């Protein structure tokens, strides 16, 4: 059975965060009858609990929709949802490569934002036809005419006939569907050529093994085809192919050029399927893989430890499973004196880190202790050797270090003019190097700064939002390494150094960070029966100190008879608190303390 390519449309939706991408996807799915509205749970595509809660798309998802157009023909729409955060640029790029066109959703009130631009450029890079849609026109503050002008001026794409819709209410969705047919090109690609398919996502299923989501560029694949992953070299027999219903897999006989679907091939080793890799047929391979595959490199590292050390194997298995559809996640075992056995994990950014942490806790029911995130530093030793440092504990003795380098990013911040001053101040506080400022229109400027990555991984995004009342948006890419004065800040609790609390910091910020760290730990560490000094030190010299006072009284004198259940609840709370503690020497430290360096700038 072959499907007429001219009746297929493969597209994605791109948007700035909160501009309504997922809502539009929901509406399209609902309108085309893939799901009845009764079956619809808001935001069908974001099917991880976490995604729904945070209102963001973490992993790409795909769905196949049948649409009967006004020309009387039935079309197959393959909607590929892309992640919407700067941390996931690589995944976005792979999803885009699987599409032929993109719907650009722009908020009728907010207009073009930095990420809108970044995503459009990414889409244009992949030769996608971009079809703008103006969303949220039901908002009182909507200004669709201006926004259309903005799209034409700032982005430079035709937008005069862009559908003006409200994804929330369903207004004008039909117009979007018609334009998908007329404006988004049908796929091309020779169905008789050797198999060439792009992996844009993969998940692990405990029955079927690894299921890869792919776009067939050329050729075809069916059950029994012997396939090879061109980058990893893994080979296996296809056990099932199919396409995506809403929230379910629907097997079919064959996937051919132009189609989007999934392949299951009893692949057990999760590392064998990498997003961006090309699938081909072993007996009739294509000449060369699709361009663009790269092994993504993490930018942020932290230690992850099971709260209960017996759960170490569980954590390892969980990381392995998550890695399968998250090529960017890296991990290797490490040991901490304070925390025992765990993993040093690498992430694309802090959001990525938080998401993995939450998924480990929710989906795998693990209780984790996470250490302060850091970046990769390059340490040049006096003996000419260079090491890439991901764990502060491995910093060589200062006498062996010639100099160190830290990663810088080129950041683009789009902000309305009244907040330019505040944002420039923020960038300076974070050791930013001013590059340029351009007004893209009267009231909006794009600021370019070079910033040390370690200054933005903690809370830069939050600070940006709060200082611009939410109006600033931000995008960055790694620029390179720059020589810098860096020191290791150690924390001593009750005179014992806690390796898991050490971090690398810019020399001039060490005192300030150390002081705040001690203050924060003083709040986090519960009072013990004895006094506990908390010290910050650099190179063996104490630079800050706080003390947790000894506990003298801890008694609930009021307790009438009937109150016994309540009394027990209170004790249980106290006890429950203890469970989340780590014993360092004689001191019990709550697990949250290990993340507390993250919150140093909250006041």
């Amino acid at each position, binding site marked *: 059975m072959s499907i007429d390519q001219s009746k297929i449309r493969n597209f994605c939706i791109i948007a700035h965060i909160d501009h309504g991408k997922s809502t539009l996807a929901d509406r399209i799915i609902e309108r085309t009858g893939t799901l009845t509205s009764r079956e619809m749970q808001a935001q069908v595509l974001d099917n991880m609990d976490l995604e729904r809660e945070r209102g963001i798309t973490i992993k790409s998802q795909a769905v196949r929709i049948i649409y009967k157009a006004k020309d009387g023909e039935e079309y197959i729409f393959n909607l590929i949802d892309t992640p919407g955060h700067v941390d996931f640029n690589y995944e976005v790029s792979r999803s885009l490569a699987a599409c032929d066109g993109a719907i650009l959703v722009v908020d009728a009130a907010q207009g073009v934002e930095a990420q809108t631009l970044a995503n459009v450029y990414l889409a244009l890079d992949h030769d996608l036809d971009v079809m703008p849609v103006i969303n949220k026109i039901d908002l009182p503050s909507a200004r669709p005419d201006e926004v259309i002008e903005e799209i034409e001026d700032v982005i430079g794409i035709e937008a005069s006939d862009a559908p003006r819709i409200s994804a929330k209410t369903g207004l004008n969705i039909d117009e979007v569907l018609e334009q998908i047919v007329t404006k988004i090109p049908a796929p091309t690609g020779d169905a008789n050529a050797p198999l060439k398919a792009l992996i844009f996502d993969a998940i692990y299923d405990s029955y079927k093994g690894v299921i890869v989501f792919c776009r067939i560029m050329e050729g075809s694949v069916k059950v029994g085809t012997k396939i090879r992953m061109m980058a990893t070299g893994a080979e296996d027999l296809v056990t099932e192919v199919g396409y995506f219903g809403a929230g379910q897999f629907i097997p079919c006989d064959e996937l051919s050029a132009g189609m989007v679907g999934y392949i299951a091939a009893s692949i057990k080793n999760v590392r064998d399927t990498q997003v961006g890799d090309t699938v081909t047929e072993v007996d009739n391979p294509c000449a060369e893989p699709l361009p663009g595959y790269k092994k993504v490199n993490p930018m942020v590292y932290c230690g992850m430890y099971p709260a209960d050390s017996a759960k170490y194997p569980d954590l390892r298995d969980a990381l392995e499973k998550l890695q399968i559809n998250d090529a960017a996640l890296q991990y290797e075992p490490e040991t901490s004196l304070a925390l025992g056995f765990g993993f040093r994990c690498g992430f694309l950014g802090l959001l990525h880190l938080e998401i993995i942490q939450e998924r480990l806790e929710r989906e795998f029911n693990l209780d984790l202790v996470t250490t302060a995130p850091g970046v990769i530093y390059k340490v040049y030793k006096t003996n000419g050797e260079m090491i890439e440092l991901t764990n502060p504990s491995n910093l060589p003795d200062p006498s062996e270090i010639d100099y160190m380098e830290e990663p810088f990013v080129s950041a683009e911040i789009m902000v309305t003019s009244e907040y330019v001053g505040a944002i420039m101040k923020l960038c300076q506080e974070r050791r930013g190097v001013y590059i340029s400022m351009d007004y893209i229109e009267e009231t909006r400027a794009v600021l370019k700064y070079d910033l040390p990555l370690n200054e933005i991984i903690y809370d830069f995004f939050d600070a940006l939002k709060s200082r611009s009342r939410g109006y600033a948006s931000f995008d960055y890419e790694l620029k390179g390494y720059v020589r810098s004065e860096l020191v290791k800040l150690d924390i001593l609790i009750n005179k014992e150094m806690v390796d898991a609390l050490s971090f690398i910091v810019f020399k001039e910020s060490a005192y300030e960070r150390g002081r705040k760290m001690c203050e924060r730990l003083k709040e986090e560490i519960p009072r013990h029966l004895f006094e506990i000094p908390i010290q910050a030190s650099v190179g063996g010299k104490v630079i800050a100190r706080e003390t947790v006072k000894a506990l003298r009284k801890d008694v609930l004198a009021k307790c009438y008879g009937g109150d016994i*259940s309540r009394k027990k609840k209170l004790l249980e709370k106290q006890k429950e608190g203890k469970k989340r503690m780590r014993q360092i020497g004689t001191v019990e430290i709550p697990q949250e303390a290990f993340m507390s360096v993250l919150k140093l700038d909250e006041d």
Partner: protein
Amino acid sequence: MKYLELYIHTPFCVRKCEYCDFLSFAADSRTQAQYIHALLEEIRFYGACMREYQVSTIYIGGGTPSWLDAELIVSVMDTVYRSFSVTEDAEISIECNPGTVTAAKLAAYRRAGINRLSIGLQSCNNEELKLLGRIHTYEQFLKTYELARNAGFTNINVDLMSGLPYQTADRFADTLQQIIRLKPEHVSAYTLIIEKGTPFYEKYKFDAVKQEAGMKTDILPTEDEAYRIYKLTQHVLKKAGYGQYEISNYAKPGYACRHNIGYWTRDNYLGVGLGAASMIENVRYANTRDIYAYIENCRKLCILPQKAFFEEDSPLLRQAEGDWFGSNLHVSTDILSRNAQIEEFMFLGLRMTEGVTRADFERNFGMPVEAVYREVIEGLKREQLLLSAEGRISLTERGMDLANYCMAKFLF
């Protein structure tokens, strides 16, 4: 024959105090009469179901039971005697607040067999009383105390409260000195807790957090001062001949409150009245806190089967199964597992200065206490918070100061 402690709740007060989060409120006399009528139904019902138990202590608490007409209290006691078998030497207490008590009421209580009076004073300082929102002065308390002695009460408790806003150890020492001159048989000295939902919470919640964290406070005593007050209370009362038998309770020899001790030794107790909690044969449950639901459901009690508690289909078994004949009288049921019983045995028992005995533990649970708690006991001994000798396990003085810390360790 098994023993039972009976608690009777009367939720009515002239006015709610600023710090109070107990189930109490003002109500008109019609509601009061309806309530007491329902209460009598409940007492009759349980009396019929619990014939194999003998009541050894009774405690009428509130609210302000002494605010009610004496006849209502008399009718309650009368119904108790008709419904239950009460031991000859039963300790029968009633709570009363100064300003609501008359000689006639006290005489009626005596005639009804009540032999112990618990007077809610809280402070001898009129400014503090006003701050607490109490309806009475210290002078009114003195009058009440005199009336009580004249009425023949020879077992009187005075409730005191420390840790009040602006309080210092010196000021609380004045209150203590005035009380010991009156020589009540029993003193309860509770520490003020700032509870959610009270006017005090709105006023002092931030201070309460600071106090708990050991930080400087604005109005409430600092943690150090509260500690001094607690130690001072122990010291002054001890010197005056009052033994501390529980964290907040002090008594002249032979006058420790038996009803109170029953809670810590996990005796069976039956709570009747609005919101009252019970623990019978290791099942804990509580009555509804909704007075209309209470009155409504008590009316239906007379049609329920009056069976002994562990007979088939008996009220208690039905209760344990969560289906109480369609009645909403009870709002929570907790069947204590063996582990929960062991935990309770320890953390309740250790509230008492005497602590628990190894023999009691073995009798209850069929194994030595060390089999369960060896490490906990050794750990607390090392920290000098616990004594374990002569078949007894108890907290040291410092252990009492840190009672929550110690008790939490006994939870599984």
